[in-house]
């Protein structure tokens, strides 16, 4: 055990309590950058954003800026977005196409493959000689794609992406593999700042179905398909789903494993949630047979609910929002939001989805506005001396964990539960207090075994 910051005393996943220091402490945050973000598989970009050789997209891994590029041979590589000469940020564009990256400071130029190729005044300035082969960009050593999503990992000893995902892949496939051809990003990336710790956002998408009816009450009230809201009973057009996914009364599932989490309600029909545009909801109904053939009925029917792949990649089925919570210190995140469509969807549906997505979950979205407000206000309270010491209750559904016999994998519970939150924080503790991946995996496994007795 290597718990120099005593984080094990701050999280008790067995009893369902966390101490707020984990959201505000600078030392804990610095250790997170090393032990969580420095060795987790992190989402970088979607392959559809880099169709051609020379295409690039800039993003972050933790707080490290990185450039993701499509190579001449069609492969993808990622590099620390930092000139090797004096540390300047190399590329300042969001995305684009280029033959090389040239530093604005002194003009060092790097090829697409990361090698240092141009040093201005090389003969005159480096009379002592400069071995350019030693000063290429720092490469992200582990990079892989999963059904269109590109992931990177700084840790050469990390398990494969498939092992890291475990059963989360089953849930992810339900989002990414509904139709032949996979998915693509529609339109640009929403980016905005929220003054809260990254774990509030990540944990909510991991585990918190419970907030939706209340936090988002106003949006549901004014967008519900009733004659009071619109005389034809269709505020969001033909095809709008009649009621929120949680109002069907058919039960549901929350999933937890290796820090990941997901939850959804069972529905009779393939209905996206009530706030999704009618044309988009209709598209999902029309394409259900193909999704069912590929995924089986449980996942094909699932067009609502939340997900987090530990630590910071989250998405909502049906709403089609995929987002990364980039950490910016213990008290701030930068949210990057992508709208994900089936590549095979007609252009008219993609356009409708882009509009539906922004209306619900863009920064001015009917639902998004209220989420960020909650996290910001919690973060403010945690400045207090007493508030810092006052534990949070994470006990919903404690002791009702099970492994299902119907093929829905992982440690599960009813939808309204905090099983995935407890799993998220346990995984976080295991990463924060373990030096090796073998220790991390052993500790997580032991916790899950205690939960479901096997």
């Amino acid at each position: 055990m290597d718990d120099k910051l005593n984080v094990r005393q701050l999280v008790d996943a067995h009893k369902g309590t966390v101490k707020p220091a984990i959201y505000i402490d600078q030392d804990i945050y610095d250790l997170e950058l090393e032990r969580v973000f420095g060795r987790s598989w992190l989402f970088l970009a979607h392959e559809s954003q880099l169709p051609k050789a020379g295409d690039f997209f800039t993003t972050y891994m933790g707080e490290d800026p990185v450039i993701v590029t499509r190579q001449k041979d069609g492969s993808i590589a990622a590099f620390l977005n930092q000139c090797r000469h004096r540390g300047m940020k190399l590329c300042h564009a969001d995305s684009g196409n280029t033959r090389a990256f040239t530093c604005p400071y002194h003009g060092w130029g790097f090829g697409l493959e990361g090698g240092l190729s141009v040093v201005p005044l090389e003969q005159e300035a480096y009379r002592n000689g400069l071995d350019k082969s030693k000063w290429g960009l720092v490469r992200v050593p582990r990079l892989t794609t999963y059904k269109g999503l590109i992931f990177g990992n700084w840790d050469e000893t990390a398990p494969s992406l498939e092992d890291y995902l475990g059963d989360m892949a089953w849930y992810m496939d339900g989002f990414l593999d509904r139709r032949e051809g996979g998915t693509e990003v529609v339109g640009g990336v929403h980016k905005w700042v929220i003054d809260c710790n990254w774990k509030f956002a990540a944990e909510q998408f991991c585990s918190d179905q419970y907030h939706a009816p209340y936090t988002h009450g106003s949006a549901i009230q004014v967008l519900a398909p009733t004659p009071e809201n619109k005389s034809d009973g269709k505020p969001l057009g033909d095809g709008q789903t009649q009621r929120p996914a949680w109002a069907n009364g058919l039960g549901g599932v929350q999933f937890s494993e290796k820090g990941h989490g997901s939850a959804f309600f069972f529905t009779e029909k393939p209905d996206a949630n009530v706030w999704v545009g009618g044309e988009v909801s209709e598209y999902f109904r029309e394409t259900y047979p193909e999704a069912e053939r590929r995924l089986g009925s449980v996942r094909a029917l699932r067009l609502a609910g939340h997900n987090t792949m530990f630590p910071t990649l989250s998405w909502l089925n049906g709403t089609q929002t995929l987002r990364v919570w980039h950490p910016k210190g213990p008290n701030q995140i930068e949210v990057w939001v992508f709208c994900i469509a089936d590549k095979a969807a007609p252009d008219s549906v993609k356009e409708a989805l882009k509009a539906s997505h922004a209306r619900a979950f863009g920064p001015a979205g009917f639902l998004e506005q209220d989420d960020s407000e909650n996290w910001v206000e919690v973060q403010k309270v945690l400045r207090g001396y007493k508030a810092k010491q006052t534990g949070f209750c994470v006990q919903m559904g404690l002791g009702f964990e099970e492994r299902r016999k119907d093929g829905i994998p992982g440690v599960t519970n009813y939808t309204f539960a905090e099983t995935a939150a407890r799993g998220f924080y346990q995984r976080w503790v295991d990463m924060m207090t373990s030096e090796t991946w073998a220790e991390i995996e052993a500790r997580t496994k032991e916790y899950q075994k205690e939960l479901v007795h096997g």
Partner: protein
Amino acid sequence: MDDLSAKAAASAVYKVSPELQHEVEQFLYLEAALQDEHRFREWLGLLSEDVRYTLSTNTLAQVRDRRRGIAPPTTYIFNENKYTLERRVARLETGMAWVEEPQSRTRRFITNVRITGQAGDEVRLSCNYAVHRAAKARDHHTFYGTRRDTLRRNGDSWIVVSRELELDEFVLVTANISIFL
């Protein structure tokens, strides 16, 4: 003249009568005041039934791409019609739109009003805006940008037919946009 679609500023001043300039400016100030006073239903009455109200994201492009006319893709922040604007007002009226509970205070500043074209009973104008929002106990947010409006004559006043907003931020530095810009 008569070009209501141009996005870039014309290189010469488009001349209009002081009366028209005055009339249009006073309309924009009235509209801003109604929003600042939370009289959103009255404000909706100043929008045409076919109003379009849009705001898209901004992106950072490298010079090589800009010269080729290539830019990173954008997406909508607002993409509204009369009905969705009305639903946003209805949301505020539920008393459960938590971001605006308790209600924020806003102050809108409209400057650099330039009428850029006229066609029939419509005028095209551009202006810059600044909006200050005070919320919760001590949150202060400012939004700066420009917009292009098309107004249509409506008796002795005007109605807004389209509003194309731009907001001068790449990464938005506020947690959300819960007001009209």
